[in-house]
């Protein structure tokens, strides 16, 4: 069964309680072991790949060299034939035959190395696929278990916000009420600021003797004196 399938079965089947594993500890160990082994395989395959690629490069160089030499001796053999030196031409032909034999060996070796390179690259790709798939599955298992345990931690924390969350609607209403209260407060603050602003302007006007002014004690006294003088 796929890991997704196992998780679905576990969730349906009441492995909901925290601590109950989706895949037992042994299963997880096997997964982790396989990932570890696949990584080892990749490391070894990469080492071999480097060696084989180096061998193939060596072959390539030798093939180039042998091909060049063969061409050169073919020219020499032609020259010898043209000069009528049959014996020398035969000697050169033997040299060419040796070169061709060596070239054949190197070409075969190159083919073998190329096949080995393909197979090693295939192995690495397969191992990498296995790692990716196992790591993804492990992540699913571990995330499911982590969320279950985290939920348990949250539920166990009685001083936490979740325990105060009576119900969705009630919580939302309280938040909205708080937002409204804050908005009202800001409006009230604004109004208050306006009023304060006005009164400070009034104060300035008063100080400048403009608008409503308080009668100073001296004014009252002089009025009283004037009254007393009239009598």
């Amino acid at each position, binding site marked *: 069964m796929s890991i997704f399938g196992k998780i679905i079965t576990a969730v349906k089947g009441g492995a909901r309680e925290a601590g109950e594993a989706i895949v037992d500890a042994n299963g997880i160990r096997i997964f982790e072991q396989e990932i570890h082994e696949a990584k080892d395989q990749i490391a070894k395959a990469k080492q071999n790949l480097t060696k084989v690629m180096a061998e193939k490069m060596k072959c390539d160089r030798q093939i180039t060299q042998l091909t060049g030499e063969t061409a050169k001796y073919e020219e020499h053999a032609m020259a010898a034939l043209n000069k009528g030196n049959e014996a020398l031409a035969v000697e050169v032909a033997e040299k060419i035959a040796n070169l061709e034999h060596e070239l054949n060996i190197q070409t075969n070796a190159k083919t073998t190395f190329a096949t080995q390179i393909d197979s090693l690259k295939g192995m690495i790709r397969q191992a990498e696929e296995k790692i990716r798939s196992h790591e993804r599955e492990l992540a699913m298992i571990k*995330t499911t278990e982590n969320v279950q345990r985290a939920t*348990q*931690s949250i539920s166990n924390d009685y001083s936490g*916000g979740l325990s105060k969350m009576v119900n969705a*609607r009630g919580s939302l209403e309280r938040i909205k009420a708080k937002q409204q209260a804050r908005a009202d407060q800001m409006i009230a603050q604004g109004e208050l600021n306006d009023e304060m602003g006005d009164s400070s302007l009034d104060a300035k006007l008063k100080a400048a003797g403009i608008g409503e002014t308080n009668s100073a004690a001296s004014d009252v006294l002089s009025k009283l004196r004037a009254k007393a003088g009239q009598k």
Partner: protein
Amino acid sequence: MTEQLSAILQNLDKLDLEGAHGISLSSRVLGGETPVAEVLVEGREEIPLYITITDTQLLCICYIASESEVNPEKRSEMMQTMLEVNVPMPLSSFAKINDRYAIFGALSLQSSVEDIALELAYLSDNSLDAIDALDEFLV
């Protein structure tokens, strides 16, 4: 993991969230077998956000309602609605954990603290919107 969580919370503390997202957070790490950070958004303390770290990702979860709050007759219609609005909902997805409906966002462990802050801001906004929108399905 507790250290990782604490480091994230400390980095979140250093950000100007008020300026960037208009929110102010308070947070703490809850103990237990798997450490979880509880993040409270100022003014929205009733609907806390939770951060937990797994081997591969960072999960931000917000529980929106429990099964008992759902009108049984409208349950399947609610789920249909959740699936339909799952893609349009920015950064968060609907989920169910045990008997609670939740919305959550998953982030890479390499996420920057700014990404985490944005995730939390969206998660909080989405949760309020979601409860508001799902109200008709609740008892």
